[in-house]
């Protein structure tokens, strides 16, 4: 176990370092992103321009700038934004984290429930029309662009039907759980549903497929021969085996979303989470914030994949941890 943790930890360092270097190089290879002129202002004279460049350490060579930024980010923890001068990056990130966690966990609960219920239904139901219908709805869910869906939800709940059916829908934004739990819930309800639609579609299809595969396995036939009821077989064995793929996907999805992949949902619903922070920093070409959010996201991706690998061994004891 210790060696596993040790190996995965060093793997994480490797991933974080390589991504941070790539981000740095990509940023400065892009023409026009030099923050100095944008901060110095219109028609700035050359002296002002130079002062600003020096204050950003932009006149130093690339590797030194990189190391300096990493030091400010991880060691001194006082890295400041290019665009919002003086605003420390890490507090911005830590303030955004609860909102994203709330959004992603809530959506995850919904899509997992949906996926489970309807996936099982589609795989095992006696009614012939249920399977293709559920599968079709699942594909519709996957094919809907998130940003578009969010805007449509807003159009209906905030605009067209706001004075009638959806009077109870609060204005866009995020309210902390500790501030007002009921408002926290109301504000997040539609963002949860919107974000969950895409993943529910995927998980319904995947779960159904996995269940069907396992259902036809020989040992299930043995169980049937032994006389176990259909339901019991289904829930005990099939679900357990199907979980391998679901767990893989969930590790990837959860890791990515918590790291900021839900940016479009956060932007549409005005939730100030990690995704919105990422989105704004990309728009502004604010390298320190970009770097911080990318490091945060990478950490979660690697972490979740490690957790998933542990879960493989739990689900299927035959699989020894790699």
């Amino acid at each position, binding site marked *: 176990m210790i060696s596993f943790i040790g*190996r995965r930890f060093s793997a994480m360092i490797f*991933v974080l370092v390589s*991504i941070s270097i790539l981000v740095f190089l990509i940023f400065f*290879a*892009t*023409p026009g992103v030099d923050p100095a002129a944008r901060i110095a202002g219109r028609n700035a004279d050359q002296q002002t321009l130079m002062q600003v460049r020096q204050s950003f350490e932009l006149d130093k060579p690339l590797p030194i700038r990189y190391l300096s930024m990493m030091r400010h980010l991880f060691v001194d923890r006082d890295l400041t934004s290019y665009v919002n001068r003086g605003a420390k990056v890490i507090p911005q990130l830590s303030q955004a984290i609860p909102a994203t966690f709330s959004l992603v966990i809530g959506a995850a609960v919904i899509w997992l429930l949906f996926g489970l219920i309807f996936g099982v239904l589609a795989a095992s139901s006696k009614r012939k029309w249920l399977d293709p219908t559920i599968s079709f709805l699942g594909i519709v869910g996957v094919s809907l*662009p998130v940003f578009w869906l969010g805007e449509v939800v807003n159009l209906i709940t905030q605009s067209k039907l706001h004075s009638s059916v959806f009077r109870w829908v609060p204005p866009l934004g995020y309210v902390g759980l500790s501030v007002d739990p009921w408002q926290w819930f109301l504000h997040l309800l539609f963002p949860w549903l919107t974000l969950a639609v895409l993943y529910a*579609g995927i998980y319904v299809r995947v779960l*159904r497929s996995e269940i069907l595969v396992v259902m036809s396995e020989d040992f299930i036939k043995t169980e049937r021969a032994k006389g176990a009821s259909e339901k019991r077989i289904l829930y005990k064995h099939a679900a357990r085996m199907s979980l391998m793929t679901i767990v893989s996907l969930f590790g990837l999805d959860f890791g990515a979303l918590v790291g900021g992949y839900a940016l479009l949902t956060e932007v549409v619903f005005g939730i100030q989470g990690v995704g919105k922070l*990422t989105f704004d920093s990309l728009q502004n070409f604010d390298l320190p914030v970009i770097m911080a959010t990318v490091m945060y996201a990478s950490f979660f991706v690697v972490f979740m994949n490690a957790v998933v690998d542990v879960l493989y061994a739990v689900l299927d004891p035959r699989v020894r941890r790699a």
Partner: protein
Amino acid sequence: MSIKESSEAIFSESPGKIALRTLRRDKRSIISLAILGFVISISLLAPVYAHFIAHTNPFNSSLDALAHVGGKSVPVLEASTTGLGLGVTPIGPTWNPSSYFLGADGQGRDVMARLLYGGRNTLLIGTSAAIICIVLALLIGVIAGYRKGWVDAILSRLLDVIWAFPVYLLAISLSVVLLTSGLTVGFIHLGPGSFALPILIIGVVYIPYVARPIRAQVLTLREREFVRAAVGSGAKDSTIIFREILPNIIPSILVFVPIIIALCMLTESALSFLSIGVQPPSASWGTIINDGLALLYTRPWVGIAPGLLIVLTAASLNLYGDAVRDALDPKTRSRGDS
């Protein structure tokens, strides 16, 4: 056929032939292939529609054009005349194939014609990216899951880097680079209109999503009795992979294909918004979705129509995938369908 004859027929055919026959007779495969064929053909026939039916050039901005609705000529971009007279709205669906069937977009262009032309680009980019994704994911997933050890560690870390990589940053940066000077890789020069880049980016981005589940499956399969038996009997790795492992993971891969294609088409939309891939005035379902976002409150059809086509494509592939899966599975056949 008598029972003897039919069983003889079954036993004398190869499993592949049986699968194909089952598939061909499956209603689902017929319907889905018909729909796919329809979508592909109308996309290929886009120039015919544009020229002969709609009489329009959907790539020229025509803010002063006229549409023919109910016998009258109406400006395609109507300035508001009520209230304060603010805003200019493109005409909505006329349901008249010869004149702005689905209405116009913000440049006064025929949305239906652009939709058909757009199908070519989206289908090309979406399917190419999906093929790259699935083929590479198979490769990486199987090798990582089968070989374990160092190979697995390196490949898994590669998957981590791909999945954690800030694709949006890369896309934005790339778009500025392409727009400024183009990208030169070796002796290949890529301009902003090149499809190679979006296909590559979209394809690679989703590799972990398919590779990790495949790897998980292979990890399990590898420990199964029949595989261990094969290993014990000294069979080559490649034989084991192709004979024992691959056939068992095909159903999982099949379910991913339509999902990945849909996701690739939607990602194409995001990339063309960032000016990578389909350039103005060319269209793709993705660019039309983007146009539709700006017209959501007045002309929702502009955004809905391409979405419907993506749903149609993905859903028919979905249906076909289910049919293929059932055809390949000997146990399903014994259930008495087809």
